[in-house]
Structure formats: C-alpha cells, structure tokens
C-alpha cells in the first residue's frame, strides 16, 4: 500500500507509452488527462467534458480503452498507459490514422485522437467487427462535425486493410 499526499514534495511515477515518467509537485487529485497534458507534455489526449461523456480523452490502460478524465493519475502507478502519441512505433501514421485521413473522417480534429485510440482498442480485441460492433465501440466518442458517416467508413477501411494484410 502506498499513500500520496499533496505536501509538495511527494511524487509518483506513471508508465506512459512504455516510458516511466516522474510526476512531481502535483496535486494528488489530478486526473490522468490533466497530468498527461499539463505535466508530461503529451497534449494529444484532448479534454472537453471532463465527465466521461465525450471520449476525447480516450487512452488505453492495461489493454482497455478508458476515459483519462475519470482516472485519478496518482492511482494509476501500476498501469500500462498508451496515449495517441504512443500508437505509432515508427513515427509514421498508423493504419487507423491513415484510414481516417483517406476516408475524410477528420474535420476540426478535436475528437480524432480519442476516436483513433478507441478504434485501435476495438481492432485489437476484434479484428472483424460488424457494423453494429463498430457503432457500439465508438458510441462513447462524440464528434460534432462529421455526422459519423466518414468515421464509420474509416473504421471499415482500417478493418478491411488489416484483414487483407493478414491473408
């Protein structure tokens, strides 16, 4: 058991995108969303509603897509956290990122990182999601620009491309 207090000199460490990061002099009640953006310099994860409704802050924690705004960072010291910045291993856009661009699934772009993370989590779990499974998987990610049609198309493209690659 460990305790963290906001005495100023306490710190904890988080594992983000395979790297150990020290979080120092932070208020212990801060959300993972806030810590990623403001303390660790990882602004790819977006913040909007801060109540788990919009999905903009979706990250993968121990293999599951979660809302970073609902995770208290100081409690995630044992977790393996992957943000949108950590999806690509070679600095090039991932297949899902490319399909979003190709299908026109990006307009203002604010919801995009959360959606990209959610779709990666979906395809990791289920390599051939049905239409309903796609809709259900991104039902927690709100987009106010696209009307979703091109986002669904991007997910289908990513799914089909992976399946062709696997054959």
């Amino acid at each position: 058991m460990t305790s963290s207090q906001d005495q100023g000199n306490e710190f904890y460490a988080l594992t983000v995108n395979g790297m150990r990061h020290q979080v120092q002099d932070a208020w212990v009640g801060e959300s993972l969303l806030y810590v990623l953006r403001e303390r660790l310099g990882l602004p790819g994860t977006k913040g909007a509603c801060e109540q788990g409704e919009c999905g903009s802050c979706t990250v993968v924690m121990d293999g599951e897509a979660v809302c970073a705004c609902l995770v208290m960072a100081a409690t995630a010291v044992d977790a393996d956290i992957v943000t949108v910045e950590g999806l690509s291993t070679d600095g090039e856009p991932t297949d899902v990122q490319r399909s979003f661009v190709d299908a026109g699934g990006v307009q203002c772009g604010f919801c995009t990182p959360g959606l990209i993370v959610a779709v990666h989590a979906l395809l990791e779990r289920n390599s051939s999601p049905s239409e309903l499974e796609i809709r259900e998987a991104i039902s927690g990610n709100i987009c106010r620009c696209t009307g979703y049609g091109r986002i669904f198309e991007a997910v289908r493209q990513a799914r089909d491309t992976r399946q062709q690659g696997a054959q």
Partner: protein
Amino acid sequence: MTVVNATSIDEVVDALRRLPQARLLQGGTDVMVEINLNRAGAGDVIALRQVSELRRWYVDEESRTLHLGAGVPYAELERSPLCNLLPALAEAARTVGSPQIRAAGSLGGNLGTCSPAGDGLPVLSAYDAMVHLRNADGSRQMSIHDFMVGVKRNASAADELITGISMQLTRGFQGYAKVGTRNAMVISVASACLVHDSERGSIRVAFGAVAPTIVRARNAEAWLAENVELVGAIDVSGRLAREFGERAATECTPIDDHRSTAAYRRHAVSVLAERLLLRAATPNTTGNRAS
C-alpha cells in the same frame, strides 16, 4: 488530501478505520466527475484499482451461487463466460454508458452510489442478490432489498467496504430493458428486469428510475403466480401480459424531472414489464435463458 493506493481488502478496511470520511474510488465514473468539478471539495480517497480480490468471481456449484467481486467491471459482465451465467445482468451492463465507462465502472460503484437509475440495480433486485460488506472488525451480508434505502443512500456504514454480491443461479428466461434518449451514454428514464426461475416456479420483476430506490413489483408477481403455472415453460396471453404490466406499474412512484415525466415513466415500465413477460413466454426469442 491523501490518496491511499490499497492492494488488498485488509488494507482498505484498515485505511477506512483510520480515515472514515475517505471516499472509495473504484472506476471513477462518479467520484472523478465530482473531483474534476470541485477540486477544493475533494477529501481523502482510498483507491481500489489495485485490489485484485475485488475483481474475482466464482460459482459455488453446491449451492449454485455466483459470487461476484464488487470491482468486476461491466465490460467483463457483458462478455463470456459471465454473460451466459447472468444474461440479464449482461444486458444491463451493455446499456451502461460507453465501452470506456464499462471498462471502468462496476456493480460496487453502482451499489455505493445507489442512484435509483443505477443500471445494474434492478437486476440485483430481481436476482434477490446479497450484498457483502467488510470492515476492520469483520464481515456481514444483507439482502439487496435492505441495502438500498433511498436516493443515493445505502445501508453500509462509513467504515465498510462493499466487497461483493452473490446471487443464486436460476434456469429460465431473464431479461433487461431500458428506456433512454439514445442507445449509449444515457441515464435511464425507466428500466426493468424480469427473471423467471423455471425450477422453483417464480417470476420476479424490478424497476429502476421510477421511485426513490429500486421497486420490486411484488403484488404483480403474486397476481401472476396465482394466474399462471410458473414451473417449466410458461404460457401467457397478450391480454394477461398487458394486465401484468399495468398492475406492476401501479407499484411505482415516479416523479417529473428534467429527464422525463411521471406519467411517461409509469407507461414505460408497464410496457417494459409486458414485453419482458411475453419474451419469457415465447420460446426462441432473442431473450436469454440462463445456463
């Protein structure tokens, strides 16, 4: 503010003894929303994330009782094998928030918050589940019906942790239905769970979001038992199912609020109860038979 990262139930109850005002943090879907909105109001927190004991479940084959850790996330309830053992709970889990919320949220949180709109609670009521509690002095269990005492109020003491839920496995149809403004990310306007125990011959129906706490429609259940043979497959007419729904709805005390009106909610639960009973009576429906 102190945050305790407990790693066992013993550590949690020990921390609760020292910090009885502390809030328990499991998935964060309620507590973190409040802390994000009101930093200053955040007191001490005991985090349950690393307490793996709370994420276990097992079936006692002798008594056909399923013991579910309070921290098992909804995402696990909606997947195999739990969805085959507790189909109605799986259906309810699938209506909770979004995949992100279901990966974090749990029945322990639902019980701790004890909102009348908690999606899992009508199912636990229809299962006649037992709630398991522990403090530094020992453990106890109580019926779900005694546990839920009012709007966001439950019968646990300040130093107690909800460790789990247990329920008897049944054979026969069980189903859950919820009314909201869309399929995802909504707090229910009204919800219903119906469980047919085809061995013992009973049908149990519970409603959410239509009273200060979950309602069991016991008068309608008794009326049904008088009019229909409930052991084995059941046979009900459309007219009887409608009367069952109407009778059950009279046992609710809904209110008008920003999400809906009392009249609509009463009508909705009547339709949901009727529909679930018809599903229970029709073989080969999309409904579920617990195995």
